[in-house]
């Protein structure tokens, strides 16, 4: 019997597909359903000069702090209950991110959409009159060819070399479901990318994807996906509803540690110098100490 190909990989296999200087889109939203196991692995790798595209949370903070980011494309970076992401804030204030493109949230989506549709731009109002157009002089306006003659923002495509997203369930072929409240923009990240890698809480067989879950939750189709990796608790410490909510206690520990160089060194040594299994073990033992 013929079946679609098996795309299962390990975390290290995914990182081995990445190259210096690539543009990498990271799915999720702020501190929600981020592919953190893959982010942690990139942080440990020798990769450099990356362009990171993200509705940012700790993914952005961790990669900026590690000096991985040459260019950052974002609309915000926040941990929600900790409004300002401390490592991102430090990186900006110390001038250690060489290039930034701060966009309106909707422009960011439109840029991904233009890339997904292989268009040179898509028009929108957002950005007009704001300093987004001043701080991003490469973004131009376009005049409507119709009678209204309006001058709109011509949002350029945000083309990704690679997209990384984290889903609740996936099959070995790359079909994947989200079971939480919001799909965020994970399908769009995949469509805007040459290649997309999906990490997931649980690998199931294809039939299992629609057991107890409506077909509308199948956000990602295998035509968009190059590889799948099972990373249980892989979005930690961000949300992965309903598998788990945000680890607020650990997030506070992260934010508090980030505020002090000595505490940060200890945090990085304990949680970030080890592989994913080591990370999960360290988090478990940290919770037991609390």
């Amino acid at each position, binding site marked *: 019997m013929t079946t679609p190909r098996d795309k299962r990989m390990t975390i290290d296999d995914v990182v081995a597909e990445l190259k210096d200087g690539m543009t990498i889109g990271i799915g999720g*939203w702020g501190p929600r359903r981020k592919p953190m196991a893959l982010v942690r692995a990139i942080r440990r790798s020798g990769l450099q000069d990356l362009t990171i595209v993200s509705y*940012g949370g700790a993914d952005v903070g961790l990669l900026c702090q590690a000096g991985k980011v040459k260019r950052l494309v*974002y*609309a*915000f*970076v*926040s941990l929600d209950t900790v*409004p*300002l992401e401390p490592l*991102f*804030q430090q990186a*900006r*204030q110390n*001038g250690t991110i060489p290039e930034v493109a*701060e*966009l*309106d*949230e*909707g*422009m960011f*989506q439109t840029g991904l959409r233009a890339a997904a549709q292989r268009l040179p731009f898509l028009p*929108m*109002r*957002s*950005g*007009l*009159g*704001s*300093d*987004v157009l*001043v*701080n991003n002089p490469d973004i131009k306006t376009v005049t409507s060819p119709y009678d*209204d003659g*309006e*001058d*709109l923002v011509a949002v350029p495509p945000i083309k990704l070399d690679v997209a990384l997203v984290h889903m609740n369930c996936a099959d070995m072929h790359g079909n994947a479901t989200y079971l939480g*409240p*919001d*799909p*965020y*923009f994970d399908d769009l990240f995949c469509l805007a990318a040459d290649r997309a890698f999906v990490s997931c809480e649980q690998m199931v067989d294809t039939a299992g994807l629609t057991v107890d879950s409506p077909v509308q939750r199948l956000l990602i189709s295998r035509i968009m996906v190059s590889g799948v990796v099972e990373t249980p608790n892989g979005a930690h410490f961000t949300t992965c509803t309903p598998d788990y909510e945000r680890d607020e206690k650990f997030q506070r520990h992260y934010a508090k540690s980030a505020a002090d160089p000595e505490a940060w060194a200890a945090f990085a040594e304990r949680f970030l110098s080890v592989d994913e299994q080591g990370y999960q073990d360290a988090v478990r033992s940290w919770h037991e100490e609390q």
Partner: protein
Amino acid sequence: MDATRAEVCAAAVADAFKDDGEIFASPMGLIPTLGARLCKLTSNPDLLISDGESLFLGGVPPLGEKADVVEGWIPFRRVFDVVAYGKRHVMMGATQIDRHGNQNISAIGDFARPKRQLLGVRGAPGNTVNNRTSYWVPKHSTRTFIEQVDVVSGVGPARAKEAGSAASRFNDIHRVVTNLGVLDVGGEGGTLRLLSVHPGVTVDEVREASGCEIQVGADVGESREPSMQELILIREVLDPKSLRDREVPA
């Protein structure tokens, strides 16, 4: 029953939403959420409110609690659809706001190397050229109200006009509610204008707490006190834990 300052602010927020009809009210932060929910329970039951995540709420739950009835799905991608559609009134925060009604939540100082990095512009540029936008300032001060913001995130009327009809067509900066009073951008050339001061606050106090000129009309009145019904809704239904007092101390 004397109203606290926080309760006067909540009523002022409610009034900002009362003439909106059947639209999506997007309050950011505690007092805006309290005020929008108060509005839905009193002057504008047609308002659509959300849990701030992905659900339209059928009922009007207290702050921090989930609703038992859901009347729709509003994930972030559909929020952006409604922004462009226009039937939305967002009340955002403002780390800085200037005389021309421009708002900043991006960064303080030079954008290239900020003195203090804030959230980023978030949806402010898109909100202000697409749907009605108001601001909530819990601490009216000379650091917040300034001559010119460092990074224009939310666009005021003069900048929108300058950017052309596509920007000004739906630019609608409605109210700025602060702990001292209520303002709009009805001043000369679309500049800040004081509409009312909260009970116990003088016009001079507002002037002293502002780092830019604010136009004061001849008819500046006192912000209204919440009604008895509103006070009962605030104290016993929407915010029995008095979370509001943490944002605007009594």
